[in-house]
């Protein structure tokens, strides 16, 4: 780094001196000064540019998913002026870069600032990952500038940004980095942060009609912006920028540029800032409602005139990946568009976007978008959600007063907030803590089982302690056992495993000629070879297959896959009636990976299967009854959502089938699956807590589902694609809050019912959700009007009480729903299957 960073005061190597004050900054350099003006003392290779300003945490959002956001720096750098200054200083010549003619008729324009300066400046965006050693320099310059008016006193040299010019719609996807000479910038489209569209952003439009990807300023992560914002507040109690809006990172970029070039805010287009505009440019922005967009040559027509909102314009100009994706998805009818347009719950941005004539024609041309829009809208919601938690200067109260489509959520969030435990109780249980709960001599548990379960329910288990604790959670060890008893138990379990396995292992006849057994083996093997192969333990094939006639004889196998196969075959000996069912290998793999001991893993798996066997019954009765219970639960807890699902033919809840049958194994990442399962195994609140997890996931997406998904296939696709995007911790907490709310509802209904029965009122089953929603429904699903949410749990409770009161005899609490209050697990009776 030292090689690229040269100090201005280090002697003869550096001739450049920063101007004395910002007021007479570089503008004032006359052509005459040019000869002496050598921006940078170059290293021997002649490379390196001067970093004047930089700002961190400026992101490109290549896809609607926040996961894909690329953090980077926006920077203003100065390079050595063109080698033949005299060629350029001639009168009447185009003052822009000599090599490329400007497409705009701005010759002889009254451009006010020095084009010579502008041509040495580059506005660049570079991803953090591309900076290498220069990263520290960027950070230093960013922080050195905090609120200051001058570029850093020291000169910082950095490698020149990539000169590749991003051409929208062509390649460059993936790299995104760009640097554009300031004199080639035609305009900046500047969108300050707002509540709906959370991040402020800047889009650079060049004189050649290109636009660069929108740069989003994540101000809450940017140290210098936070510092600058604070400084403003301290200095004049004015946290707002010059425009009277909240100060944000984009203001800084404008401020940098204004030091060197003229930047004019368009009067017709408040979000457009013209850079070094020609007289013609200025005129056209005052006199006629002309297009700003030279990029696509799209003339603004009809309603899409100058007042077109900045977002749609940005999309047109940037050709966001959005539009590409819009063209891909499934069905979309004009009617749907209209539905969305009329729906006040749809984020304003989406509504505006859909009104854009270009987008509308796209919808006609291509099949569409509803799913994509849905996911996109969710992305925005999540982003602003996260922001609301972090934000420092926006009053939380103000946020809550905002009219929100989320409605009922807010209440839930407040309830969720009330569940906050001190952080110690959210920490996983370690082996040390676990050991402390036992009598050191007898090895008997000295705290109550409930206390243990509560801890694990809220905190989970430390990975190093799982091998031990899971054996308890999965009923291998009795809670009242002593250490000696457990040792003896495990020994006999090991013997029993060997005995069970011997039933097929030692029976060569059976292995060779029992058709059923061979079929089972083939099924199991097929699935084991495609279960969690991305986990190192199960990856690779490093041993030859034991049987030459196996379909996997050629690819080979590995010892852990063989163990899994053996355990699943042996489980058939333990549970004779069931037979292998797809999904069982998914349940076994994490247990085996944690135990890494076949006998212990086998018995833990047996414990898990005892809990979940009903998922795999031949008649599917176990799955059906869970889907029915979920159906009732949604009816009770969220009648509006339920009514929507009815209208979308989705009340079979089939879209939760995968989640329920393998207990979210396919929906969460590996580590999260382990955490979720140990939480579920506690039965701390309910033996069927997994259904509250389902409800929590559904509630999280209810607005999207209700606004965008109109058919079963869309709901299914949307839910299927949530896989690996669900945040476990918030889902757990929300599920817990939903459980408590459920419990209150049931209790209130019961109270009401006993009262109603006394006065002889008839019982009305609430099952039907007709076209006219009852008051009860509007009370609970209708958001209880966001504003009523202040008051938290109390408000929620009132809402709950109102459901009961308004409905007269209250909701009918089905038997299925009552099972949810039971902490015992529903097991298959006897050995019927």
């Amino acid at each position, binding site marked *: 780094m030292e090689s690229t960073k040269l100090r201005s005061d280090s002697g003869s190597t550096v001739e450049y001196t920063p101007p004395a004050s910002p007021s007479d900054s570089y503008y004032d350099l006359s052509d005459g000064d040019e000869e002496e003006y050598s921006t940078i003392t170059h290293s021997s290779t002649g490379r390196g540019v001067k970093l004047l300003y930089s700002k961190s945490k400026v992101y490109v959002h290549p896809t609607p998913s926040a996961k894909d956001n690329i953090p980077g720096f926006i920077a203003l750098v100065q390079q050595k002026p063109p080698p033949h200054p005299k060629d350029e200083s001639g009168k009447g010549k185009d003052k822009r870069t000599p090599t490329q003619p400007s497409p705009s008729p701005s010759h002889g324009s009254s451009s006010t600032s020095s084009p010579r300066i502008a041509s040495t400046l580059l506005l660049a965006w570079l991803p953090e990952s591309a900076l290498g050693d220069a990263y520290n320099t960027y950070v230093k310059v960013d922080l050195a500038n905090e609120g200051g008016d001058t570029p850093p006193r020291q000169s910082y040299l950095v490698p020149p940004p990539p000169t590749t010019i991003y051409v929208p719609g062509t390649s460059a996807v993936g790299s995104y980095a760009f640097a554009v000479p300031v004199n080639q910038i035609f305009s900046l489209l500047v969108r300050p942060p707002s509540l709906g569209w959370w991040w402020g952003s800047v889009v650079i439009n060049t004189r050649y009609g290109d636009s660069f990807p929108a740069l989003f300023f994540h101000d809450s992560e940017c140290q210098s912006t936070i510092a600058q914002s604070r400084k403003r507040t301290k200095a004049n109690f004015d946290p707002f920028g010059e425009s009277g809006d909240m100060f944000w990172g984009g203001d800084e970029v404008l401020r940098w540029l204004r030091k060197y070039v003229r930047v004019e805010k368009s009067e017709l287009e408040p979000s457009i800032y013209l850079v070094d505009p020609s007289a013609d440019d200025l005129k056209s922005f005052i006199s006629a409602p002309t297009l700003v967009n030279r990029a696509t040559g799209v003339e603004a027509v009809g309603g899409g005139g100058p007042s077109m909102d900045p977002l749609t314009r940005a999309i047109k100009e940037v050709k966001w990946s959005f539009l590409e994706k819009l063209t891909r998805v499934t069905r979309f009818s004009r009617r749907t568009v209209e539905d969305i347009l009329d729906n006040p719950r749809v984020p304003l941005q989406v509504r505006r976007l859909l009104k854009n004539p270009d987008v509308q024609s796209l919808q006609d041309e291509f099949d569409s978008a509803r799913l994509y829009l849905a996911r996109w809208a969710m992305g925005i919601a999540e982003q602003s959600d996260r922001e609301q938690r972090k934000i420092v200067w926006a009053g939380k109260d103000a946020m809550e007063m905002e009219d929100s489509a989320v409605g009922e959520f807010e209440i839930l969030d407040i309830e969720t907030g009330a569940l906050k435990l001190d952080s110690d109780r959210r920490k996983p249980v370690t082996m040390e803590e676990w050991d402390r709960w036992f009598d050191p001599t007898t090895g008997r548990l000295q705290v109550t089982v409930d206390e243990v379960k509560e801890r694990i329910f809220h905190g989970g288990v430390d990975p190093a302690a799982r091998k031990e604790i899971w054996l308890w959670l999965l009923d291998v060890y009795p809670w009242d056992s002593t250490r000696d008893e457990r040792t003896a138990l495990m020994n006999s379990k090991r013997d029993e495993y060997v005995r069970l396995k011997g039933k097929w292992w030692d029976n060569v006849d059976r292995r060779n000629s029992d058709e059923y057994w061979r079929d089972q083996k083939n099924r199991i093997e097929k699935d084991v070879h*495609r279960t969690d192969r991305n986990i190192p333990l199960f990856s690779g094939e490093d041993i030859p297959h034991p049987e030459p006639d196996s379909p996997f004889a050629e690819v080979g196998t590995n010892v852990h896959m063989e163990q899994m196969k053996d355990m699943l075959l042996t489980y058939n000996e333990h549970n004779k009636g069931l037979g292998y069912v797809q999904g069982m290998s998914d349940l076994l793999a994490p247990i085996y990976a944690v135990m890494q001991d076949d006998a212990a893993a086998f018995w833990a798996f047996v414990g898990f299967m005892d809990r979940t066997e009903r998922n795999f019954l031949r008649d599917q009765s176990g799955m059906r009854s869970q889907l029915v219970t979920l159906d009732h639960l949604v009816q009770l807890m969220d009648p509006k959502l339920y009514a929507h699902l009815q209208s979308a033919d989705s009340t079979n809840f089939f879209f939760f089938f995968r989640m329920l049958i393998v207990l979210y194994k*396919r929906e969460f990442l590996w580590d999260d699956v382990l955490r979720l399962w140990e939480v579920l195994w506690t039965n701390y609140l309910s033996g069927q807590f997994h259904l509250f997890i389902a409800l929590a996931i559904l509630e999280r997406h209810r607005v999207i589902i209700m606004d965008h998904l109109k058919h079963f*296939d869309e709901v299914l696709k949307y839910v299927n694609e949530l896989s690996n995007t669900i945040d476990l911790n918030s889902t757990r907490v929300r599920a817990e809050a939903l459980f408590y709310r459920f419990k209150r509802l049931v209790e209130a209904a019961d109270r009401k019912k006993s009262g109603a029965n006394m006065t002889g009122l008839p019982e009305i089953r609430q099952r039907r959700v007709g076209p006219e929603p009852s008051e009860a429904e509007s009370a609970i699903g209708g958001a209880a009007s966001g504003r009523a949410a202040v008051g938290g749990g109390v408000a929620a409770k009132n809402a709950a009480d109102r459901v009961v009161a308004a409905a007269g005899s209250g909701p009918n609490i089905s038997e299925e729903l009552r099972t949810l209050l039971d902490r015992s697990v529903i097991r298959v009776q006897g050995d019927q299957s």
Partner: protein
Amino acid sequence: MTSRKKVLLKVIILGDSGVGKTSLMNQYVNKKFSASYKATIGADFLTKEVLVDDRLVTMQLWDTAGQERFQSLGVAFYRGADCCVLVYDVNNAKSFDMLDSWRDEFLIQASPNFPESFPFVVLGNKIDVEESKRAISQKRAMAFCQSKGNIPYFETSAKEAINVEQAFEVIARNALAQEESEDFSDDFPGTININLDNDQSGCAC
């Protein structure tokens, strides 16, 4: 329905577990093959836009769990299907033997208006595996398909992308014919469309 500008063709892919349903679908839609697809649980679908005789149609390809235990769930998504693809593994005789029951099960659950003429396509997959492992000859498979009303038959390899494109082209074509005939009979019940008979694969009438 006929006024709908875009046509959505719903195609259901059925067959025993591990015959390559997910792989075939991904090869066709995403031009990708992975040896490590997980066993499908529940159901999912992919969509693809294709041109059939200058008509732009969207194919919605439904991928399902292969274990027969899950067959009863089919009713949730078999309805409204325009074509059913039956897949077996040419190296696995049992998966071939099951084709008939997959077909029957589908017809029961989807209950199309004219089960006799409902379009099926049979795919014998995994022909990339060495010849010595082969369990079902092409001749035998074709005899079966003929006996079931001239079901079109393709031998495919999702892994090597052999015949996948061709097979799905026929699937799309037959599904579109089905969709149009259904539309027609929906719109004008009682009238007889003479072209209808020509559209069908022949022997069913």
